């Protein structure tokens, strides 16, 4: 009996309707992206994503662009990513996007239509996560690319050289990786919050506080943080002058790949727990 157990488990796994699940996941993701990406309700999230681009545009129009100034502007861009996007923009943007996916539908009393479809709840959750991630990455990724163009475009040929023959493109890739991992990381956490809490905002504010103090915590606790992993992916360290010094704590350097893998493991753990919770989710709109 004992000898047959592993093979029967493998057979059971093979017998699962993976093709159907994949089809359902694709269709659910498509439906969710269509319903949520282009929505007037998301205006404030567009604002969060594109406000730096607006500021950089004003800077591009009114300030001079001497060659020596480009280093300063690179520092400013790194600061925008590290201190604005990671700490605030992506954080609150993902809170708006992902917490709506479950809790928003509970408030609107429409989640039951999905729960009455022949779709496993885990597939539903992961599809909603995929749809939220596509929306968030598309939005913040576009914003970062726009920031980059507006920052280096006004330098003309010097800016072109910096981007295509210098370190510029590598920095852009790093920023896009940070944005993607940031959206996935915060997205997974806020999706879980939206299953666990009727109002995810207090928990989100606690998380914001946790992320702020995380750099001064012991290294084991630092692993339970999205921002700490993202910091290690920055292409260069932002100088900690002035107000930035308050937000910058020097931590033990971690290789970029290790930080990325660490964050992906954290995301997998959070999503696994979310899958477990959504199986027990009950529709009781009257208590919402």
């Amino acid at each position, binding site marked *: 009996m004992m000898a047959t157990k592993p093979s029967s488990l493998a057979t059971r796994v093979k017998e699962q309707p993976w093709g159907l699940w994949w089809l359902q996941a694709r*269709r659910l993701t498509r439906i969710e992206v269509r319903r949520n990406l282009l929505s007037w309700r998301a205006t404030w999230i567009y604002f969060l994503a594109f406000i730096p681009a607006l500021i950089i545009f004003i800077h591009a129009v009114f300030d001079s662009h001497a060659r020596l100034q480009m280093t300063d502007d690179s520092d400013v861009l790194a600061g925008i990513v590290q201190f604005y996007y990671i700490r605030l923009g992506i954080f609150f943007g993902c809170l708006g996007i992902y917490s709506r996916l479950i809790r928003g539908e509970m408030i*609107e009393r429409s989640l*039951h*239509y999905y729960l*009455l479809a022949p*779709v*496993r*709840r885990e597939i539903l959750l992961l599809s909603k996560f995929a749809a939220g991630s596509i929306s968030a990455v598309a939005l913040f990724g576009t914003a970062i690319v726009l920031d980059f163009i507006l920052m280096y475009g006004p330098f003309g040929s010097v800016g072109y050289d910096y981007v295509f023959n210098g370190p510029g493109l590598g920095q852009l890739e790093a920023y896009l990786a940070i944005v993607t991992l940031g959206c996935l990381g915060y997205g997974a956490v806020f999706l879980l919050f939206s299953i666990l809490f009727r109002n995810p905002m207090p928990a989100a504010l606690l998380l914001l506080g946790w992320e702020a103090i995380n750099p001064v915590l012991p290294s084991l606790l630092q692993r339970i943080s999205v921002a700490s992993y993202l910091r290690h992916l920055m292409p260069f360290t932002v100088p900690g002058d002035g107000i930035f010094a308050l937000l910058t704590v020097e931590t033990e350097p971690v290789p970029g790949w290790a930080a990325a893998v660490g964050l992906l493991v954290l995301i997998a753990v959070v999503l696994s727990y979310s899958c477990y919770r959504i199986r027990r989710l009950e529709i009781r709109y009257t208590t919402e």
Partner: protein
Amino acid sequence: MSEMNDRIIFEDVSKFYGEVLGVNRVSLSIPPGITTLVGPNGSGKTTLMNLMTGLVQPSSGKISVLGFTPDNADEFFRVVGYCTQFDSFPRGLTGWDFLFDGLTLYGMSEPEAFRLAGEAIERVRLGDAAGRKIAGYSKGMRQKIRLAQAIAHHPRVLVLDEPLNGLDPMARAESLALFEELGRQGMHLVISSHILDEVDRISDRVVLITGGYLVAEGNIHQVRQEVRDKPMQVLIRCDNPELLASKMFAVNHCVEARLHGDGRGIFLRTRDLDQFYTLLNGIAAEGLVRIEAVAPADDDTSAIYNYLIGSDGSAS
């Protein structure tokens, strides 16, 4: 097919919302046909339906629908359709989008989903309104699109929570005809409704529930038998109702008499139906009163509901 796989089965099911009782120790075995859940507001009808479809989970006990459980959503929701009482929809959709999007999740091809969505819209007679945003629908149209969504995938079990709410008389009659047709096709229909008179006409059986407790269940006439100790009302059409009433009141099991509005009949309420009919036969044989017709006047869901539960919702 075993009996287990042809029935909706509740085995000693209880549901508590914190310390609030939803339903308590309910055991039911519902065969195919139309079953009506009857009970006052807050009696546990919707909880029973939500338990049946996995929207809430039992605190104890087991539920299976044709041998399936909601844990296995892939199979369960292919055989079950549920038209809930929640009058809400995902934002920004047309009736058509709402149906089509839902059907694509069954794994069928898009042309097939297209065909089934069209068929469901036709069945509920929603017509051209399907192309409009649901936000602009009347209450009756919203009810219809929800019904269409519940039946579009051709389920074997259809659960309908107050399906006649918001419908005008014509739409109610159409819906009832549709339910009757689905019942005739061998489907399980579980319906809760406050419009008892209408649902009663098409029901095969009734489940009476109040305060989370099952009070009675079964064929409407069987349930009536369970309450034999309650006075039963009979309408007797005859040429001399006053004389008949005086004769019938000579025995103590007759407790109430009321003249019919047209003066050509009388409603008599009796505690012993067998003795009542024996006596009536004797009076007819004597030739003092010419009896034209005799019919039970409260052998319906509404009357049973009032007997067992009472107008205030407290079980007697």
